[in-house]
């Protein structure tokens, strides 16, 4: 079946199998930041934005995305790089496998709620599993990023 999906700002028309997941679709179109970690819709690694909202691409049919807008980390370069630096500064990414999903969902959080409390951060990111860090590094990185934003994007110590 033919679908037309706006992927990272670019219209992609493709002939796909009806049971192809959105995860597979974006990977086939070069978005390798999106990974599948659990196969049980639990880990958050495959997070993409679907019409601006974070979703698990492993659980959505690409067919359902026909006519919709999908964004991956590759499409959020500047935003992702800016935030990702703060995660890296804390050494929070360690193996780095969970990082793209974590960054995507953190960006979604900041778009919804620019100044979240710790409880709101933990709740929002609960669906992103990291098996290296225990999440403390990510939390420190998020705090540092929020402080940086509060200062108007100026460098902070």
């Amino acid at each position, binding site marked *: *079946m033919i679908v037309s999906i706006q992927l990272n700002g670019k219209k992609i028309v493709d002939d796909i199998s*009806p*049971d192809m*997941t959105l995860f597979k679709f974006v990977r086939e179109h070069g978005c390798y930041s999106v990974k599948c970690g659990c*196969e*049980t*819709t*639990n880990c*958050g690694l495959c*997070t993409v934005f*679907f019409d601006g*909202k*974070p*979703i*698990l691409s*492993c*659980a*959505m*049919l690409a*067919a*359902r995305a*026909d006519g919709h807008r999908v964004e991956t980390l590759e499409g959020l370069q500047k935003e992702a790089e800016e935030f990702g630096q703060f995660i890296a500064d804390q050494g929070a990414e360690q193996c780095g496998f969970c990082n793209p999903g974590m960054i995507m*969902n953190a960006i*979604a*959080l900041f778009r919804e709620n620019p100044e979240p409390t710790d409880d709101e951060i933990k*709740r*929002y*990111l*609960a*669906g*992103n599993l990291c098996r290296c860090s225990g999440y403390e590094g990510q939390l420190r990185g998020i705090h540092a990023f929020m402080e940086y934003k509060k200062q108007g994007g100026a460098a902070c110590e």
Partner: protein
Amino acid sequence: MLKIKEYVKAESLEQAYELNQKRTNRIIGGMLWMRMSDAQIQKAIDLSGLGLDQIEETEDAFILGCMVTLRQMELHEGMNAMCGGLIRKSVEDIVGVQFRNLATVGGSLVGRFGFSDVLTGLLVLDTYVELYKGGTIPLAEYANMKRDNDILVHVIIKKTAGRYAYQAHRNTKTDFPVLAVAASMVDGKVKAAVGARPQRARLYLADAPTQEAAEALAAAVVTGSNMRASAEYRSHLAKVLLKRAFAEIREKEEQ
């Protein structure tokens, strides 16, 4: 591995209903549970183009299309104000935001899943389901019906003033609940739903939200064992969570 031969974006409920009469065809909701199955589906019927993804507020009810997501329910201020946040509490620990942006109220109820926080929470509210052919029936009745080929079109939550509480225990955050309890008191009548027993949620009635009533009710709750907990542990939890839920109800002002 899930296999789908054909994808059909339904253009009407009638078309979806007709397609759904064939055993090998299946309506897809959020697909979070279905994608983990080994089902061989001839035609996957998608209702996402029928405008059933909105929560409409009327004078006496909230009407949820079957494709409304758990995240929409979690964030809906009016609906949560009406029930003291019961709806939000019942869904906010279900995996993560990305999951709840996909999981639908219709899919959650049609599945009558044993682990369902959604079914547990909605059972103590004045909730009805509107079926395409079967008319509008109370959720408690629907929950006990066998699965058939009708379509759950809307979920109707009446604005009923009362006191509401939700309690659940999980072995780890974002996991299925080991036990889930919802309770309500409306016009002096107390209802409690106990879910994840691990069988599907069941509704119980009590005379008053007292500690004694919680104990008596807990003794009547049938529990079972699975990989998350033993029946004995669940029975103990039933007592604890029912007591907490009833204490919450006693403390709360009428919504």
